[in-house]
């Protein structure tokens, strides 16, 4: 990749090349200004709504709906957060979400690893159709599964049992995780597999000790995506978890209420959304470190 001759044809994108020469040449400030501007726009676009939620969570009620718009809360109030914690077992919601999402992610990535390892080393022409089939499966809107799942969950007596969420979450995310892991596994040199077979590692041991560690960036990516899905999933959580002790954070937020049937408690909702998102942000930051370190020590070819 570093060889200029070898690298050139692979880089098909024109803009990347231009950016490369611009920084190398140091002489084109216009490109840099544009670059910075674009970055600022993207940042505003993606961070803006989140920041707005955070600000709303800290505003007194009167300022939330005030016209003209009040941007910065003055004074900052923790009232919404306090109300939220005192009215709702918000900590329990968070813990439930963490518990469900963690197990669902573990389960999903483990099974996806088995399937992906099989697919990645599958001889013959069966692999592509299978992968396409998986993709097709993942296109089904999960809402279609709500009623059958409800019947099943009720039949098993799993209403208000974490498994009622863990298993569907894991299953719903399998196609995605298999896709991510399969393409990563397929890029591992076949000889590593063979060396491990000769060293006496079983199929499962190879996945655990060779595939997964070497595909760590992909594993982390898959895990984060699955975890985020589980954390954010709403319909199943709402339907299967009816008691406060079992509700996940999304279902919990749905039951945040205002003083009247018609009032929407914006402040509390914003506080709840910010509180529900923070753990996710922290998690991604931590995992991102892992992805980066995984990348730097990957170095498969000697």
């Amino acid at each position, binding site marked *: 990749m570093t060889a200029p001759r070898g690298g050139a044809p692979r880089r098909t994108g024109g803009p990347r090349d231009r950016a490369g020469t611009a920084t190398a040449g140091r002489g084109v400030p216009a490109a840099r200004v544009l670059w910075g501007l674009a970055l600022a726009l993207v940042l505003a676009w993606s961070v803006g709504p989140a920041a707005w939620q955070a600000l709303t969570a800290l505003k007194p009620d009167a300022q939330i709906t005030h016209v003209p718009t009040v941007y910065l809360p003055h004074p900052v109030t923790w009232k919404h957060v306090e109300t939220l914690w005192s009215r709702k077992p918000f900590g329990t919601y968070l813990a439930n979400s963490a518990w469900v999402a963690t197990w669902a992610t573990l389960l999903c990535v483990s099974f996806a690893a088995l399937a992906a390892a099989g697919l990645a080393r599958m*001889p*013959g022409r069966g692999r592509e159709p299978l992968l396409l089939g998986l993709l097709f499966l993942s296109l089904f809107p999960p809402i279609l599964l709500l009623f059958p799942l409800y019947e099943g969950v009720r039949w098993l007596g799993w209403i208000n049992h974490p498994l009622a969420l863990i298993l569907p979450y894991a299953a719903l995310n399998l196609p995605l995780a298999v896709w991510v892991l399969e393409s990563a596994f397929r890029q591992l*040199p076949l*000889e*590593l597999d*063979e*060396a*491990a*077979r*000769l*060293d*006496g*590692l*079983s199929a499962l*041991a190879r996945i655990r*000790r*060779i595939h997964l*560690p*070497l595909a760590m960036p992909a594993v982390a990516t898959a895990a984060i995506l699955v975890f985020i899905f589980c954390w954010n999933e709403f319909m199943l959580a709402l339907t299967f978890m009816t008691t406060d002790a079992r509700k996940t954070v999304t279902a919990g937020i749905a039951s945040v209420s205002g003083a009247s049937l018609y009032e929407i408690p914006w402040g509390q909702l914003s506080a709840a959304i910010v509180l529900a998102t923070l753990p996710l942000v922290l998690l991604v930051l931590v995992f991102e470190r892992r992805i980066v370190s995984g990348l730097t*020590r*990957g*170095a*498969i*070819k*000697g």
Partner: protein
Amino acid sequence: MADLTGHDLVKVFPDGTRALDGVSFTARPSRVLTLLGPSGCGKSTLLRVIAGLERATSGTLRFGEAPFDELPPGRREVGFVFQNYALYPHLTIADNLGLALEVRRVPRGERERRVRETAEMLGIAPLLGRRPAQLSGGQQQRVALGRALVRRPRFYLLDEPLSNLDALLREGMRAELKSLFGRVESAVIYVTHDQAEAMSLSHEVAVMRAGRILQCAPPLALYARPADLFVATFVGSPRMTVWRGRRDGSMLHTEGAALATPAGLGGGDQLDVGIRPEDVEVSDRPLPGGWQATLEVSEPLGARTLLTLRIGGATARAMAEPREWPARPWVRWPADRLHWFDASGRRLDPGGPGGSGNR
């Protein structure tokens, strides 16, 4: 340790490629059997079949008397060295070496001792804590060897282990390998397409072509009495000069010269005759019983100079003294240094057909 034998191994890939076409061999303890052949002739496939990474379409493998075709690779006790080493990038060198022992539940203490011993033997002990990416090519090569050695396998399989090294390192490693092989008690099967490597390392060389073993013999025997025209030209550098001719009585008429056929030589009307460049005598002055040639190319190699000569309508190559040669030198060769082959490429020996090599 017992003999490792393969009998009539055939490997046909699902796409129809017939990579092994009835291969039989015997690899003996403490001896190096080299598989030599051009790229694509099935060397790696044979190695992989032995290791269990591929399953033979038919044929049997035995260690001593016991067939092991049904054993999974991990239970065949092979030390395999991959062409590209295939070290585990995420494990330290110590773990790379120790993984097989760990899987076999060798106690920790003994495991560490064996890893260290092996590393010391290969001169990589200081590197045990590093990861493969932090090693040079030569060091990685040693680790790959170490991974095979540390297991004390029943046989070693090495697939072109030196081909990824630069020329200088390769020669040094070749010598080290030779001394290493001298100390092991298991059979070694060594794959290469480099005949110099094959000659220098092996007790026996099996020359392969198109999924078959053409000849299996000790290196010098192979050189002296190639059983086959292909072997004759493949073994020896620079290549043997081969002329085709028509037999007329006791003479063979080639484009270059008419040569007397030895008495009792079999074969039909058409024969090939070969002479190795190092067997050609070159002189400024006329040589009795020789021919005057035209010098076309002169390549000084240092110790010798390689000449490309035209004799009549054909070319021949000769290893001559390292000096300037005139435009029309004289050449000659002893009749007993000629190699005769019939129309199908089989070696002809005065006094009877065949008679050398295993096949």
